[in-house]
């Protein structure tokens, strides 16, 4: 408890007290302008989209890793954790370098109208890369502990493969998927290092809220910067509460 309060509670308290050193009017003026609203919207949109993409891709990876044997499997398995360890600025630089017009991938994609650098798509792409391991690592143990007999029973009772998957396997995975979603969402909301390199930081278009926080700090406006942080925290917290409730509900429903 003491440990937790030093690590999380006290810094959070400091953050709130700094933000509330502003008068309500100042606070409002700092956090609610067309530009900050656009930034919140962008931040949450890209985080949600990338978490959804992480779930789909993460599930496929987890499925393959658990159900199939192939050469170098353990190396692939270890590689999943790479985004956890990689400094995110490196991920950002590599992604933007690959997808710009003269990059390895960009030279083929940009003529097709696919902008994988300096666009919303670019941010979703890099956040998905960072989010996938959360989904894989939460789904893997659930898939591994799944007994074959359930599937066999379903099959013997005449269920098709699709039915077996959607009605038998999928429901048991839902709680873990929601957890994975929540984790990668939280990761996406707070991400700064990689996004600044791939987004292009265009105000109103591809500017994330953390960039605005840094901009305020550069102007020595500490209180205004923390005010934006507080808004992000409150919205994120609310979303995580909802996700947690959803997870509980899904457990009761499916498990």
């Amino acid at each position, binding site marked *: 408890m003491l440990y937790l309060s030093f690590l999380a509670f006290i810094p959070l308290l400091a953050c709130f007290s700094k933000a509330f050193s502003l008068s309500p009017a100042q606070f409002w003026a700092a956090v609610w*302008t067309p*530009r900050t609203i656009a930034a919140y919207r962008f931040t949450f949109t890209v985080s949600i989209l990338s978490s959804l993409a992480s779930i789909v891709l993460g599930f496929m990876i987890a499925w393959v890793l658990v159900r199939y044997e192939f050469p170098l499997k353990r190396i692939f398995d270890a590689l999943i954790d790479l985004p956890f360890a990689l400094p995110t600025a490196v991920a950002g630089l590599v992604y933007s*370098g690959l997808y710009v017009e003269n990059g390895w991938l960009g030279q083929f994609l940009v003529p097709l109208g696919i902008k994988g650098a300096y666009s919303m798509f670019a941010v979703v792409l890099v956040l998905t890369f960072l989010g996938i391991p959360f989904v894989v690592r939460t789904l893997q143990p659930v898939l591994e502990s799944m007994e074959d007999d359930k599937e066999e029973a379903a099959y013997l009772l005449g269920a098709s493969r699709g039915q077996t998957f959607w009605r038998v396997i999928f429901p048991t995975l839902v709680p873990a998927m929601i957890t994975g979603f929540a984790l990668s969402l939280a990761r996406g909301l707070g991400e700064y290092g990689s996004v600044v*390199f791939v987004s292009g930081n265009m*105000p*109103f278009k591809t500017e994330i809220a953390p*960039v605005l926080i840094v901009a305020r700090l550069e102007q020595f406006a500490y209180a205004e910067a923390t005010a934006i942080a507080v808004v992000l925290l409150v919205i994120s917290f609310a979303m995580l509460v909802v996700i947690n409730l959803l997870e509980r509900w899904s457990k009761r429903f499916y498990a």
Partner: protein
Amino acid sequence: MTRFLSLTTLVLLAALALPGCNSSKAEADAEGSHELLNVSYDPTRELWRALNQEFIADYKKKTGVELEILQSHAGSSSQARAVIDGQEADVVTLAMWADTNAIANAGLINEGWQERLPNGALPYFSTIVFVVRKGNPKKIQDWKDLIAEGVEVITPSPKTSGNGKLSFLAAWGSVVLRDGSEKDAMDFVTKLYSHVPVLDSGARGATTTFAQKKIGDVHLTWENEAHLEVRESKGELEIVYPPISIRAEPRVAVVDANVDRKKTRAAAEAYLNFLYTPAAQEIIASHFYRPYKPEILHKHSASFQSVALFPIQDIVSGWAGAETKFFDEGAIFDQVYTSLNK
């Protein structure tokens, strides 16, 4: 952000720990430490490395004391914040007046700091120039060419970068100082930023975007960075001097509160005064910063093409006024982006 800060701290701690080992043999410790910390901005690494080497030798010859000088480099404003928050800088050599002033406002630098060194505490100055692709295919010569059809401009965000601020101010001045009205200037910068495809957060990021990722047709940057960028491009890039640009003033100051506590005032003051000597001015010029001594500037005129450099006071009351008028929340730069997104 915190990650960046803690990284800087780590690097610094490591740097501090190393010379700390042999401080026991420094017999004169009673009169203060023999270690100076120079907190500077991003692109000055090579400059200070060269200057420090020269100064340490010079100081040893004069006083018999062997100094140890540590350098710290990052974005100018974040460096100022670090010093305000307790980084023990003996001297600050930042890019923007407003950053040094913020440290003074925090009570760490005494009032009148600009009068305590020659030339208003400005041993060198610089400006913003253009870097273009080989052969200047888009024929960019002047500010108005930046808003021609199909030209893409790379410049960092004025909100987070000194380079970005200076570029904005230079663009503004290029209109109002050549018989344009403020409204014309507003129109011009609005058009200009509609030609900016990527708004990097710092100077080095913008350099990477332009030089390595090959995005954009022209890069607005510090004169010294431009020389470095062109040299490293191996003939892929070249410099274009616009006829008019801003006079950038990276002033230097002793951090009084820190040198008094660490008892390093004598060395710190000698260090900054050394910048005004002919030897130091030569080093400054060879790193493409414009030396304040006219004769040395003249001697290096090959590297410093003449540009009409206007002081900030020609367009606004001063560096502090520039912040309020252009870069604060809801000020002109924000209005530019608001009108671009209507």
